[in-house]
């Protein structure tokens, strides 16, 4: 029956459909934007200060690539640790212990409320606060003492600062995902007799669908935020470019070089996000390659 309707629609479609005419202002806007873009393009190509030759010379240079590797490593590490920690804080926030809830809330407020640049500087200078790190039991015996400056290298300081911040943001994203799942799903899992941990196994795949888009955004933000670690002398992508232009004074071309890499990888992550979103929408959108996602009944399905 549905096939008949589709057929008649298709055969009836002999007349050509055209969009309605555009208004005058649309044409004016298109003209203005086109002229602007052409002017910009001309400048980008002809203005020697862009230094495209220098960009080409450095974009695949060992120095820049090494910085890029560090930036990527930092992003991956921070994202992984941040997600795990975020899950813990999120569970604390939805737990039924008031104490755990308050602790989690305070954590999130603290790390989201202070500029990340300050957090990076703070952890880099942590030795000024705690010259030695004591390993032991609070108010109890000490097992060993370590020199903070030896332990907290710029890399470690960067990982700590970015991760603690990441945890706060990921906790909110994960919590939003868990709360976004219909409460009937929790009830159904519990009514089947699932213990809490297994209920979470049923809820998480559904929450992931809600969690992915903001997490992908967060990943891109984190990737760009790693540039902040250049202030503590860690040779990430930005700082590597800075070191080069400190020597050859080609400031703009090297900033462009770094930006090209940031842009390329951000775009890649954007693409990855859309792929993942499709994959996890399984069961939430009808599959298109299905024969009959309808209510029509085969004889066997009709109940007496």
């Amino acid at each position, binding site marked *: 029956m549905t096939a008949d309707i589709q057929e008649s629609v298709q055969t009836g479609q002999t007349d050509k459909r055209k969009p309605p005419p555009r208004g005058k202002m649309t044409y004016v806007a298109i003209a203005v934007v086109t002229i602007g873009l052409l002017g910009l393009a001309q400048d980008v190509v002809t203005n020697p200060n862009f230094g495209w030759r220098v960009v080409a010379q450095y974009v695949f240079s060992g120095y820049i690539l090494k910085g890029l590797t560090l930036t990527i490593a930092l992003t991956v590490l921070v994202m992984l640790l941040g997600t795990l920690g975020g899950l813990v804080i999120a569970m604390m926030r939805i737990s039924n212990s008031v104490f755990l809830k308050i602790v989690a809330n305070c954590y999130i407020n603290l790390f989201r409320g202070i500029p990340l640049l300050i957090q990076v500087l703070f952890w880099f200078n942590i030795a000024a606060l705690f010259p030695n790190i004591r390993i032991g039991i609070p108010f109890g015996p000490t097992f060993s003492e370590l020199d903070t400056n030896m332990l907290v290298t710029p890399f470690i300081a960067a990982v700590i600062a970015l991760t603690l911040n990441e945890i706060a943001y990921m906790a909110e994203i994960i919590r939003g995902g868990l709360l976004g799942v219909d409460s009937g799903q929790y009830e*159904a899992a519990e*009514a*089947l*007799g699932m213990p809490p941990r*297994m209920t979470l196994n049923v809820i998480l795949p559904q929450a992931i669908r809600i969690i992915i888009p903001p997490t992908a955004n967060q990943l891109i933000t984190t990737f760009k935020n790693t540039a902040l670690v250049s202030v503590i002398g860690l040779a990430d992508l930005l700082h590597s470019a800075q070191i080069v232009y400190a020597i050859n004074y080609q400031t703009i071309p090297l900033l462009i070089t770094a930006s090209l890499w940031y842009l390329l990888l951000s775009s890649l992550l954007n693409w990855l996000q859309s792929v993942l979103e499709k994959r996890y929408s399984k069961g*939430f959108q009808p599959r298109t390659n299905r024969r009959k996602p309808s209510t029509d009944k085969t004889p066997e399905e009709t*109940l007496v």
Partner: protein
Amino acid sequence: MTMTTKGGSVPTPKVDLQGVIKRFGDLQVLNGIDLQISSGEVCCLIGPSGSGKSTLLRMVNGLLLTDEGRVYVDGTLMGFREEGNDLIGITSPQLARQRRNIGMVFQRFNLFPHLTALDNVTIGPIKLLQMNRKKAENKAQELLAQVGLSARASYYPNELSGGQQQRIAIARALAMDPSVMLFDEPTSALDPELVGEVLSVIKSLAADGMTMLVVTHEISFAREVADTVVFMDQGKIVEKGPPEQILTRPQSGRTQDFLARATEAR
């Protein structure tokens, strides 16, 4: 399956509620409920919206715990351990274990949307009863056939009609081999033309001797399948008895009003 003779001598009821009281903050939702359901009995619970029917159902399988009174299913006290005169709450995993032989079907189906119909039915036996996949899938196929949906095993819930989803939800509950089935307005979210297919599955369960507590607004269905009809209002049981008595010759004015409105709405 065996038919239990109605009204036969049944020593311990399947479901036994004794003076159950439930509060949500200051609001007392159940005001002392006493109700016994024997093996093979079909008990239909009717009453106006907000009278506490869903709350009562959730107390039977421990989704909600009593503030006072006791709930026994198959002789097991739900949610607590008795120590002398004290009741001590049991842990969530222990409570989860208690729920496994009580099936529940919801108004809004609540199928797991990321799993196919078959996986919705097998997840309980595989994860909770440690049944091997092959055996669980064979059993699930049998249950899907029983609810008339063999051909839909590989479909996701959103590819199915409401009536089909509810039948899958019934199969999911049956897969745990429950000794009691609870239904919370199983047809209220359905288009009128899909109500019949779900009710006929429930009727066939009744014919097989399943012990059931069904919250419903389908008066004619209650008349047909119920052994006992319970009318609830404002957190209390107003009357209970065989359907011919409660539905045809109700004693209480409140029951009469409710039935008049329910049949008027048809």
